[in-house]
């Protein structure tokens, strides 16, 4: 019974975390560098539950210098996130989270989130990243 419920939980978690290729209104490759993964932990300072992408901002403390920098992360559109288990109050100001994502090419403290883990609950959310989606007309020939 316990094994069955664990299996069920794994499936549900997988569904929640699965990002899949989500369509964006812009080219992913023009904005983000797939060779530059970023993983940071910090407290949420702001959430914009808006289109075309939801955004959140977190304060990240550099362990070496002690300096705090504010990072912005792009998510999918709210309607896409809702299908992955999010609501507009999933992230709240003050929540401590760990973000796994891809850094922006312009070098700023800006990225595209792939997964978000809430430190307090341990719950992991897929962020609906459009990474890996090739523009439809440029499929290999």
């Amino acid at each position, binding site marked *: 019974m316990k094994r069955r419920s664990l299996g069920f939980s794994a499936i549900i978690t997988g569904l929640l975390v699965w990002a899949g290729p989500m*369509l964006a209104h812009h080219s992913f490759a*023009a904005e983000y560098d797939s060779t530059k993964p970023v993983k940071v932990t910090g407290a949420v300072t702001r959430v914009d539950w808006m289109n075309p992408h939801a*955004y959140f901002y977190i304060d990240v403390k550099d362990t070496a210098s002690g300096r705090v920098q504010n990072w912005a992360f792009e998510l999918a559109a709210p309607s896409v996130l809702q299908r992955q288990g999010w609501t507009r109050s999933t992230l709240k100001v003050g929540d401590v989270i760990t973000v796994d994502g891809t850094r922006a090419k312009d070098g700023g403290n800006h990225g595209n989130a792939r997964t978000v883990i809430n430190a307090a609950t341990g719950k992991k959310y897929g962020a609906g990243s459009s990474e890996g989606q090739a523009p439809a007309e440029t499929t290999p020939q």
Partner: protein
Amino acid sequence: MQSRWIAACLSVALLCLPAVSMAQARGGRGATPRPPSAPTPRWPDGHPLLSAPPGQIGYWDSGTGSLTGKNGNNLPTNMETSEVPFQPWAKALYEERQRTQSKNDPHARCAAPGGPRQFHTPFGLLIYELPEAKRVLILSGGGVRTWRVVYMDRRTHPQGDALNPGFLGHSVGHWEGDTLVIDTIGFNEKFWFVRAGFPHTEALHLTERISRPDFNTLKYEATVDDPRAYTRSWSGGWLINWHPGEDFEEYFCTDNNRDAEHLVGR
């Protein structure tokens, strides 16, 4: 009264026709096998209904597809991008757009999507025919929530200075059997008419052919005629799946678009 009659006709049609359609429409290489579908819903006079039947909701799951290539839901008859008959300047501009990873795509700055671009703008598409008004409305769930009017009253396009170039152009349509044929001219050059960034000019003349071979499938084809950008006319298209049981939610690209400042390309 009319809607009750339509519902009755649709119910009879659904009962009398086979449970699954034998529609031949299939996507290209690697297309996901399409599940059995109910037959094409129809108006009382027999022509296809391109929206949800009475009592149902849903939308066309736009967002993918292209005029070239045979992958996924693209039509197996599509040409490859290497076969597109570009004028030299248009080929150079297309290649530049590819090289810079579409960083200058006006769609990412929330420009309205004309022609095929509307059919692969994410977040849904609805096509409503209004017989009393003699119009078809094509509504986008994403982008800047574009609504395009197709005049079905046999009017002709404005000529000369009366034609003001725009993002959506001037569209007139008619039915040829089960296919809605839309003829559009009068485009401006402020948008990319397909996601890939194939160039066009104000001379672009589009002929779009839209059909619903079964309940779950919309077949979209466009013929591109723009002698300033292409040496001859060319065509392509793709299939779009029906997304049942949901309406699309509010989405305006202009609400909080932060991307433009970060689009640096290669």
